[in-house]
């Protein structure tokens, strides 16, 4: 119990620190907040704002207050009332925008992670069993390819094959299951490769252990050795990698989202940064950091489950 409290305290501190850092960094990058917001909303990217418009806008949103005051009032509202402010650009509450976008991100991240785990772990085991045979080499070359190929290129090639040539799925959009297949596949490629490589290494190490040799000597069939004894012990490093990958997927996949017109949080964050839509940036960062920390917390819990020798507290 004490451990959980400590962990929760640490997480809260991390969230706070990241939000503070984001807030001050956003104000340090050049460009002038009021001017860029105006450019992105009312006057057009290439037009110049007049002095009068800038003053009016700054005073409406208290942009001229000292930074620490602005940040303090944001924290106060967020903590006391759960109000993360209103977007300058969309004129909607940040909570509302997040509620619109987060499900899409979670769906996409979930689907591509499921795909990555299933394919990555299976291929990893297979590759370990086939160590240094032809199929192992081929698989390892393919994964090297998977790690090296940029996501947007893979995405376009996937669309070319599965939408234009085979006519199996639509090019872009959001809402149906078939819309999710291509972005999930494009996004998972990198994770598949990492998971597979870690699984292979870890599996090989485990297979060299004495208890595995004993199990073999006992005459257990291979699949039983793998599933009962080897896999569980080989999973620890794999779980770590899965945790990291899930975290980064939840942060949004800006390029993939743009190509498939997927309404996720990554696009929202990037647009908001270039428009200096501070409340939205803060909200997105807060959501991403929280999800990331939760995933890592889950990973820690899984450790104790997989290896009872690990104890926290």
């Amino acid at each position, binding site marked *: 119990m004490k451990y959980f409290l400590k962990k929760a305290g640490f997480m809260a501190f991390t969230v706070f620190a990241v939000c503070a850092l984001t807030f001050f960094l956003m104000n340090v990058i050049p460009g002038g907040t009021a001017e860029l917001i105006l450019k992105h909303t009312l006057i057009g990217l290439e037009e110049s704002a007049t002095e009068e418009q800038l003053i009016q806008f700054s005073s409406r949103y208290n942009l001229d207050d000292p930074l620490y005051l602005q940040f303090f009032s944001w924290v106060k509202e967020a903590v006391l009332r759960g109000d993360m402010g209103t977007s300058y650009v969309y004129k909607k509450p940040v909570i509302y925008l997040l509620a619109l976008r987060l499900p899409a991100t979670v769906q996409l991240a979930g689907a591509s992670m499921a795909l990555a785990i299933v394919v990555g772990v299976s291929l990893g085991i297979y590759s370990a069993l086939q160590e240094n045979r032809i199929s192992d080499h081929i698989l390892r070359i393919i994964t090297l390819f998977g790690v090296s190929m940029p996501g947007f290129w893979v995405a376009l090639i996937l*669309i070319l094959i599965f939408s234009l040539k085979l006519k199996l799925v639509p090019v872009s959009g959001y809402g149906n299951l078939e819309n999710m297949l291509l972005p999930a596949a494009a996004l998972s490629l990198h994770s598949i490769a990492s998971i597979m490589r870690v699984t292979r290494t870890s599996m090989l190490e485990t297979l060299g252990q004495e208890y595995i040799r004993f199990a073999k000597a006992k005459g257990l069939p291979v699949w039983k050795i793998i599933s009962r004894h080897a896999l569980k012990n080989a999973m620890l490093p794999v779980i770590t990698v899965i945790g990291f990958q899930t975290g980064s997927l939840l942060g949004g996949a800006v390029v993939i989202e743009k190509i498939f017109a997927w309404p996720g949080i990554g696009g929202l964050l990037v647009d908001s940064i270039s428009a200096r839509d501070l409340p939205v940036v803060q909200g997105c960062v807060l959501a991403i950091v929280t999800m990331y920390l939760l995933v890592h917390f889950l990973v820690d819990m899984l450790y104790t489950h997989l290896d009872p020798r690990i104890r926290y507290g």
Partner: protein
Amino acid sequence: MKNKNSPLFIILIILLTCSFLLASGCSSTEENDTKEAVSGTEITSGSDAKGSSEASTLVLGEMWEIDSINTLAGGGTLICEKAAITETLVGANDDFSLKPGLANSWEQLDENTWEFKLRDDVSFHDGSKMTVKEVKLTLEKIIEANPKVASMLKIDTIEEVDEYTLKIKTKEINPILPGILHYPDTAILSPSSFDGSGEFVKPIGTGPYKFESFDERTRILTVVRNENWWGGKVGLAKMVLKGIPDPNTRAMSIENGEVDFTVDVPYSETDRIGALDGIIVEKYKTPRVYKLDVNLKHDPLGDLRVRQAMSYAIDRHDIAEHVLYNVGEAAAGPFLPTMVWANKSLSPYTRDLEKANELLTAAGWVDTDGDGIRDKGGKPLKLNMMTYSARPGLPPMAEAITAQLKEAGIGVELEIMEVGSINDRRKKGDWNLYLAAYNIAMVPDPEYILTNWYMTDGSDNQPGYSNPKVDSLITEARKITDLKERYKKFSDVEAIVYEEQPMIIIAYYGCAIVKKDYVKGYVFDPTAHDYRINAGMYIEK
């Protein structure tokens, strides 16, 4: 391993588990989807157009993400020009001269007073009549919400003379008032577009298409035919607008038949896609120019000869053909030659390296050390050039200009930056050249652009250009309401800046319309801000 088959067996099991996992994963996401659809955040106007035939529904692939349908907060152009839900008081012809819109006629009573006569046969989509009351309300809402439009309109008071006559008093003389009322943000809304507390809910206008729904989650906007449009018959029963921000995706979407109409596929792809069966690509000019700002405060660029030499060194036709793939055209002055006020005697600078050489040599810039870059007094002729990547034509164009200037012995270091950083550098004056794409007809009148660009204190006069003759011509012309005389003075300004090149205009911006061949009756509106959907467009399969 003794049993050769066993690894295969394992794979079989794993594959089975995979398919099981995938299947269960899929079904659970499917459940999620349906749940969302129920609790979805769709705003629907209630009108039921389910009965309309599939055949006359058009799916439009819009070039920007559809984030807002609020015409007071950035959604004006989309709702008015692309979704054709709202209309403006004033319209414009292809040569940018004004024509009646929701207002039949207008007249300047004295210096600061305008009278607009409204059409008396216009109804909003909610069935109510459009009278001066609604027009006044809309204009007041816009002035309150949009400081840019407010500062252009310069409206002091709006008066209702009778049901269809509106009197507008401006704070100072403002000959471009009717032109500003052509701007999509000033389109007229029914009061029922707002809720009790005055918050915007959905756009209810007078246009050929009625708002049906906007799904904030999928960001799909649906509009249906307005059977009672004052302008006559409307071509499509229904139009579905989806934002597809990636140009490659737009191209593949129309190739795959998911959209019937889209714009601006990658410029390099226009010819390939136009050659496909069943797809038509049309290239038009839009009121925007690619312009190279020159910082006159920095030593060599203050010299007229250097600027002219640069203009001669740039091959505009080559850029239009090989960078823009003819989505755009070589430019002479800031205005399209089709605009009624443009100075038609100007033609684009053609490339002439010899002339450039003469001018630069006369200015004292000669390559003495043989490194390919000219120098003077031991200082090489090296400049920096900033641009941004939000418009796809800019970075490759900047590369081309860099290479072409190099051939004339001018070294350019290219920096592609974020708009915020560019602003910062421009404010500090820490730049030489800046390539950007400027809108030239937010308002169909030359005053706005010439004032902002070339007047000594103009808000977009970043080069720091100052010519008393130009200033006085513009100031005089601004007070003249007689169009012919007014345009004459503006033409003189154009001729002067053509000679002096404080800003090097490279090319006119283009728009590639990509549509299926069964989409008929589309007419491009050159005065639109990206493109406009016209009521006469229909589908004939």
